[in-house]
């Protein structure tokens, strides 16, 4: 017998939506085996990571807060991935967005105005966009792959952050700790629900998802992005400029990553610190794929990943599972998704073995 993959004429709807669920299930299974082999209580740890956060309503706001930056970044990345634009430097854009916003905050220190927060958010959009513009322009002008340049700039952004918080932006009253002043009330994204972590960044993310969904599925602009990604020749015939699409999607994904960075920095940390970047920019890549590059899917994917983050904290205390296990779980999810994905466009066919030539 021989197992073969055969292309389907039309992608299977069931497989399309089933694949992420299947991938999560396989990740849970593999995680159980792996953690058990490593000497942890595998079954319990997997339960704590994936299920327990969902069973405890008091953790739901935490999940939403955790999902917010992931979804915001992934929404932008998914637009780019659709256009075959591989911005993998969202982490850097996230950092620079926060840096730009913090710059506004430090400049408006001791000023009270309702305009400060919007100004900070605007600065973060710009900061992220500018950081993404570098690889975008290099690709459009010189055909340099944005994959490598956007990633390199992440390391540069990280060092920029370190430099600022250790040097010029260090809190003068902060006992030499490498961090900025705390943001004032006017510089903090307001809380949404008393007694929880829930802040206004969460509904803002939701709004971004809605707008993106509309643009991608109902407007010519979304059509343009998809055509450029799927068939560059057809895009030219249609009159859509590939360069402009690359620029636009890079800038949008950079801006959204920057915005997410500022919101996270302001709402969760209240200041800029070196501990602030925690690889959301990379995790968002997994979220984008898990969500099938579709805004609504990204929303669900972000919630799933956020659950695993919260769950990993539970597993850390309950099952002594190290923090690093989270990264492993996330990578496995992407691995399994990529593997399972093949069955969206192919079907398995089992064919009888063909006899080989004897001589």
């Amino acid at each position, binding site marked *: 017998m021989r197992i073969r993959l055969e292309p389907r004429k039309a992608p299977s709807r069931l497989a399309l939506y089933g694949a992420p669920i299947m991938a999560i299930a396989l990740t849970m299974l593999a995680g159980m085996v792996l953690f058990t082999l490593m000497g942890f209580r595998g079954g319990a740890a997997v339960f704590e990571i994936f299920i327990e956060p969902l069973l405890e309503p008091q953790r739901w706001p935490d999940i939403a807060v955790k999902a917010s930056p992931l979804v915001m970044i992934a929404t932008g990345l998914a637009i780019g991935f659709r256009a075959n634009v591989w911005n993998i430097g969202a982490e850097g854009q996230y950092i620079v967005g926060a840096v730009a916003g913090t710059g506004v905050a430090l400049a408006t220190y001791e000023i009270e105005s309702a305009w400060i927060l919007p100004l900070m958010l605007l600065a973060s959009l710009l900061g992220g966009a500018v950081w993404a513009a570098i690889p975008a322009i*290099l690709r459009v002008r010189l055909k*340099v792959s944005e994959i490598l340049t956007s990633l*390199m700039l992440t390391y540069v952004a990280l*060092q920029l952050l370190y*430099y600022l918080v250790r040097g010029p932006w260090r809190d003068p009253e902060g006992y030499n700790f490498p961090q900025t002043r705390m943001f004032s009330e006017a510089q903090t994204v307001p809380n949404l629900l008393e007694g929880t972590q829930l802040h206004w960044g969460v509904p803002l993310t939701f709004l971004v998802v809605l707008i993106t969904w509309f643009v991608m599925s109902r407007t010519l602009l979304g059509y343009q992005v998809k055509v450029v990604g799927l068939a560059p020749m057809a895009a030219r015939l249609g009159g859509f400029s590939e360069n402009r699409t690359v620029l636009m999607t890079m800038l949008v994904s950079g801006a959204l990553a920057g915005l997410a960075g500022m919101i996270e920095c302001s709402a969760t940390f209240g200041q800029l610190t070196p501990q602030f970047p925690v690889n959301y920019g990379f995790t968002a*890549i997994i979220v984008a794929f898990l969500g099938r590059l579709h805004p609504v899917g990204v929303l669900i994917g972000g919630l799933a990943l956020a659950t695993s983050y919260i769950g990993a904290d539970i597993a850390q205390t309950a099952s002594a599972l*190290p923090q690093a296990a989270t990264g*492993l779980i996330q990578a496995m999810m992407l691995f399994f998704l990529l593997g399972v994905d*093949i069955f969206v466009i192919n079907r398995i066919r089992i064919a009888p073995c063909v006899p080989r030539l004897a001589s």
Partner: protein
Amino acid sequence: MNFDIAISIVMTLVVAATPILLAGLGELIAEKSGVLNLGVEGMMLVGAVAGFIAASLTGFTPFGYAVAALAGICASLLFGVLALTLGSNQVATGLALTIFGTGLSSLAGAGFVGTTITRLPALFPPTLAGHPLLRLVFGYDVIVYLSIALTFAATWFLNHTRLGLILRSVGESDASAHAIGYPVTTIRYGAVAFGGALAGLAGAYYSLAVTPMWADRITAGRGWIALALVVFSSWRPWRLLLGAYIFGAVMTLELYSKAAGFALLPPEMLAMLPYLATVAALAVIAMRPSRGRLDAPRCLGKPFRAGA
């Protein structure tokens, strides 16, 4: 400047360049066969941690390198199954491999922080490397010489062997190679596994020679620099060596100016240098007027399915 310091600067440069060269050579061969494996950083980390664990458990450093190469191969085969057999998107799969390697290495290495191992000794007897200038030539461990020998070997393999010709043909036109009757996927598996082995070795060189100890994310993005250097080299091994040594110099500059305290720039700015230099190098190489026929393999990154 002191003569001895000059010598040791150059030697640090060579040591800094070696893992990038190794990882880059592996990726160069993989890319010549048409596979873009962005998981170099992940494979390096897997190799780094596996090599360190093996060396510290047995106390035998060469065994560590062997295990590292094997671990790199295993990681690369994970990529192979997804990207070559199942035909998944190579960019996404390579990224997944890097995220996976990062997580796996920090999970597996957590218990080994603070453990020490012994470095490999210099390959040649100290008598031969007595004079400082001779030390410049004979003062390194076997991995350094291996990386240079592999540069020779890769050039010879690609240009003067039949298998090298076939490998290139698979990267230039998978459909044509398949039509003639070459096993495209098998050849690509081989190239990817070779890339994995070298990435594993390269990673282990950080944990067993450069640092030598275990620290989380010990490779610090050098795998990505190796990837960029492959582009910079226009897929030619000798240019890759040149690129690796230039980057070795940039990194050494960062190290020494920090240590000597004559820094003109804050340390964070110096730490940015290799990455900024990479971006600049990619831009400069793209500006050449003639993008001739020795540039990127034409099937680079495209999934291949027989019979399609």
